[in-house]
């Protein structure tokens, strides 16, 4: 109990908790769950964008997209590393993902149907991710906070890139502009859902807030995102697909229409358009690569033996 009090005092004093420090088991569990989910999201998130690398419409875009997807893999790797400081191995986390026991962001269960989706993902999905992640740069757990600082820097680069794709399309010909509007239509609501259920229904907020893992509520972050994004949509000349959207002079906020939480629930439950495809692909990749990992292990063993003999 003393330990617990001391721990909370450090949190309250905005001190960083480090891997070797004492921490409550629930704090550790919450962090492992959140960080690994976050890592899984980066890895699964490679798929919808990866779907357009071979079809990117210019070499510049192709290179930028490949680099972006590579960054996501990098984010996944250092997030797994951050989670490993809490005593759980990457393999274990990946197994949980493949077994369907660990979650990843529901947004990646939507398909990328046109090139404009690549713009929309950068602009909206990365934009929403950044809103979620900026406060995490001040998260009480040191390794996670430091990982997030790096992630956020790269994400905002991606976000600008995505917006620039949208801008190019919106200044392009009629077909391109239509493509951009269509992408906004399909991604807008799923992006609002990225912030999670409304505060009235959220489960994890309380403890996470006390531990300074979470610093804003879902609804607060969602509002921030909307306020930042709506003017950008207008600048692009696009229509946000929410007939109830209106600017509230008094609060200075954009007020949105009702979110279809039933859709969110279904996607979380595994029924999104691409859940099965994403998991199958990840599983297939693991399976196809098994012989390579085995060969690498066998070779490392041989090398070790050879060095021992040589020594």
């Amino acid at each position, binding site marked *: 109990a003393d330990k617990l009090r001391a721990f909370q005092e450090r949190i309250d004093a905005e001190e960083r908790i480090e891997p070797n420090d004492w921490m409550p088991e629930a704090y550790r569990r919450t962090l492992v769950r959140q960080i690994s989910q976050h890592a899984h999201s980066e890895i699964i998130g*490679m*798929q919808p964008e990866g779907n357009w690398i*071979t*079809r990117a419409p210019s070499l*510049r875009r192709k290179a930028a997209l*490949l680099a972006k997807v590579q960054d996501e893999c990098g984010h996944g790797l250092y997030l797994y590393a951050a989670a490993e400081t809490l005593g759980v191995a990457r393999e274990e986390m990946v197994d949980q993902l493949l077994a369907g026991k660990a979650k990843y962001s529901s947004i990646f269960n939507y398909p990328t149907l046109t090139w404009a989706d690549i713009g929309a993902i950068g602009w909206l999905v990365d934009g929403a991710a950044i809103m979620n992640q900026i406060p995490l740069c001040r998260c009480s757990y040191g390794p996670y906070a430091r990982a997030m600082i790096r992630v956020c820097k790269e994400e905002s680069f991606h976000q600008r890139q995505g917006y620039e794709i949208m801008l190019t399309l919106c200044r392009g010909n009629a077909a391109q502009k239509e493509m951009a509007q269509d992408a906004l239509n399909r991604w807008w609501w799923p992006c609002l859902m990225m912030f999670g259920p409304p505060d009235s229904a959220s489960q994890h907020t309380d403890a996470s807030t006390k531990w300074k893992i979470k610093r804003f509520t879902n609804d607060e972050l969602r509002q921030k995102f909307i306020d930042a994004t709506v003017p950008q949509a207008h600048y692009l000349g696009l229509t946000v697909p929410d007939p109830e959207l209106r600017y509230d002079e008094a609060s200075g906020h954009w007020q949105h229409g009702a979110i279809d939480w039933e859709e969110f629930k279904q996607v979380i439950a595994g029924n999104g358009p691409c859940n099965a495809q994403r998991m199958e692909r990840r599983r297939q990749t693991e399976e196809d690569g098994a012989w390579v990992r085995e060969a690498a292990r066998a*070779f490392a063993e041989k090398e070790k033996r050879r060095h021992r003999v040589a020594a």
Partner: protein
Amino acid sequence: MTSIRVTETPLVTYVLRRADDALVLGHRLSEWCGKAPVMEEEMALANMGLDLIGQARALYTYAGEAEAQGHDEDAFAYRRDERAYRNLLLVEQPNGDFALTMVRQLLYAAYADPYWRAMMGSSDPTLAAIAAKAEKEMAYHLRHSAEWVVRLGDGTEESRRRTGRALAQLWPFTGELFHTDEIEREMIMSGVAVDPATLRDTWCRTLIEVLDRATLKIPEDGWMQSGGRGGRHSEHLGHLLAELQYLQRTIPGATW
């Protein structure tokens, strides 16, 4: 017609051939995205893909300058038909399994690394500058693919079998690396290009050294396939281009 017609001079053709090599191999590597056997390898494959796409862009841009018909990098990449592509048959071969991809990378990098090193002395300053960057990149590709080929060759029974099969499968496409023709000879004579024949020993030594560590043998030189430099490709390239070019062909003339 959404295709361009290239005004071929020896220099334009020479540069386009190298650009096509880099683009097609870079494209093949990018197809691995999200499918690599280990996550660290996602990073490495993307790195190599990015290097090659970068080389292609620099070379296409230079070809456009040399041609002076207003063609930019994307015109060459997206608006030439299969028969106008001039890459080596080796680089268009499908990825196959990870062993095949790594052996393909080794065979190419073991050539491209000394090639670009030699090209740093090209009498053409643009090519010399591109070479300086490309050489560093290809040295990494060579190291990385060699490490994997050794690991797979000297790993398990299964990985050894796959690596040997990949080597046998790709070997007939290596002869083309060292071909020269009228066009190339002109470039060699003028000091713009290096004679690939001078690179063959280095290439062989590198492979023997790597394959030896991989407990594999260099295949005997049998019949060698060729045709890529003249636009006579395998059936694989057309499918690659259908995907690569789809959007530019569908909405031609747009800015992306």
